[in-house]
């Protein structure tokens, strides 16, 4: 990092659009031009936008799978430990290791840990709650939850260059282009 960016760090460049269709086209072009560190903001879900900025899959499902398996195993092993090792009890002559009656608790614990890990994992991965975010430094951004559509190219992108990126974004014919202070 150069000395100037340390004094006046830049989060990225923000382009503002009037319609979701313009944002979608702009996002596709920007991603196509080699900018991979980008994000888009809109007041409502825009179909195809996630694909356009190159966002394909998050890891929440993997987190849920792992914790679901942990939950299931711990539920089963707990019952096995209690009924076979720690306190074996003869119930109606059935074997100590009566797996059919273990299934319900196993299932419930799978669901419990899977459900909790889905909520916690989602929050951990998307960074919410987030008290500070640089995009709000741009006054126009207030309308991102109303009727305007924004595209941000992060300064962390390897292709990012303050002048050239601004020139590129201008080619997409946005309403405004703003520098986002970090």
């Amino acid at each position, binding site marked *: 990092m150069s000395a100037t960016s340390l004094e006046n760090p830049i989060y990225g460049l923000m382009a503002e659009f009037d319609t*979701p*269709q313009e944002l*979608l086209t702009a996002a596709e072009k920007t991603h196509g031009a080699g900018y991979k560190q980008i994000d888009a903001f809109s007041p409502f879900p*825009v*179909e*195809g936008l996630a694909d356009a900025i190159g966002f394909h*899959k998050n890891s929440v*499902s993997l987190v849920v*799978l792992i914790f679901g398996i942990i939950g299931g195993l711990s539920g089963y092993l707990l019952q096995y430990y209690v009924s076979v090792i720690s306190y074996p009890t003869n119930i*109606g002559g*059935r074997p100590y290791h009566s797996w*059919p*009656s273990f*299934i*319900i608790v196993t299932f419930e614990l799978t669901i419990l840990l899977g459900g909790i890990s889905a909520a916690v994992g989602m929050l951990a991965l998307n960074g919410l709650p987030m008290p500070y975010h640089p995009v709000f430094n741009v006054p126009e951004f207030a309308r991102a939850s109303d009727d305007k559509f924004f595209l941000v190219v992060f300064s962390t992108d390897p292709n990012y260059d303050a002048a050239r990126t601004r020139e590129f974004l201008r080619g997409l014919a946005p309403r405004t282009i703003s520098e986002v202070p970090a």
Partner: protein
Amino acid sequence: MTTTATINKADLMPPPVAEIMQTRSMFIGLIGAVASVAGAFLAPESFYSAYLTVFMVALSLSLGCMSILMLYHLVGGAWGTVSRRTLEAGMMTLPLMAALFIPIAVNLPRLYEWARPDELAKNTKLADIAHSYLNPSGIASRAVLYFVLWFAMAFLLNKWSTEQDNVDAIGRSTLRFRALSGPGLVIYSLTFSFAIIDWVMSMQARWISTIYGLIFIAGAALSTYCFVVLVETILGQRKPMSQYLRSTEVHDHGNFMLAFVMVWAYFNFSQWLIMWSGNLPEEIIWFLRRLHGGWGVIAMGLVLFHFAVPFALLLSQRLKKQTTTLVWIASLLLFMRLVEIFWHIEPAQSLHHDTFHISWTLFAALFGIGGLWMAYFFRNLRARPLLAVYAPQTLRLLEPSHE
């Protein structure tokens, strides 16, 4: 509403492949029908249970289509908008199913112990059951009631759907679909449960399970989604379906398959857990017959391939999002539906030869009933556009959501 005028009904008609499928199915069906008639005369001791097995698979699909259509009318969703004509064509095979029930109705003693006078003379408990509920006139009158109710509901939903192909359907209320579907689902669940008791559970007349009907209802819903995916595989690569079937809807169908695989397993396991825990002779007799003499392998196959393997595969989003991969899971599950119903029906018959066996008549019935059902299905499907043209949901589907 500006796009309304641009919708062309002819553009939404099924592709020529539907006609080819209909002809081929008819051909297979007729060969199977001839083989079935031969089976009825040459091997009557094995034919009728094979026939009942395939009949129940096909009936599950017809009624499953009706129940999922009702579900769609109640809850909505693009997954149903793209598949409702498939569901409607499937449920309108009910007249064929009613006709195919006749061979069962006139051959009750070959299938059911309560219809055999010599069994009743030996067993007073069975005679009591037969006297009060399970007797030929009761079976016949209830069967007429079931089919009349089913067909009446299917007929109305289908007729109203056809009316939505006309331009004057625009702006008209769709409330009547809901008004019928709500009570319709209740009527369906009750009548199908009673039908299952009459036609399948009564094969071991003294055995009772209160969740038995639900197992078949879950299975019917599962079969339906698998069938929808199969039809999408045939039609989805060609116009018009290629223009509106998105991976999001295929994904939804895959999710429904996953849900009903779990519901099916849940109901089956509930029955197993309660009977295993109770360990009462009159309850476990049903499982004993289906776990010994080679049938246990089938039971284990059901646990693995009707639940475990499809469950694990259906967890993957990648496999669920396109018909090319989802169709393999759907085909496996449809095959396992046949295996499951075979496992329900065949061991009940084998009082005198209780080891695993399978007869050529099962394949005769499968090609016969299956071929005729498919031919009838494609005939129904070809009669109308693949979407209910002027239904509000269709208009929403054809307009891009972000404009």
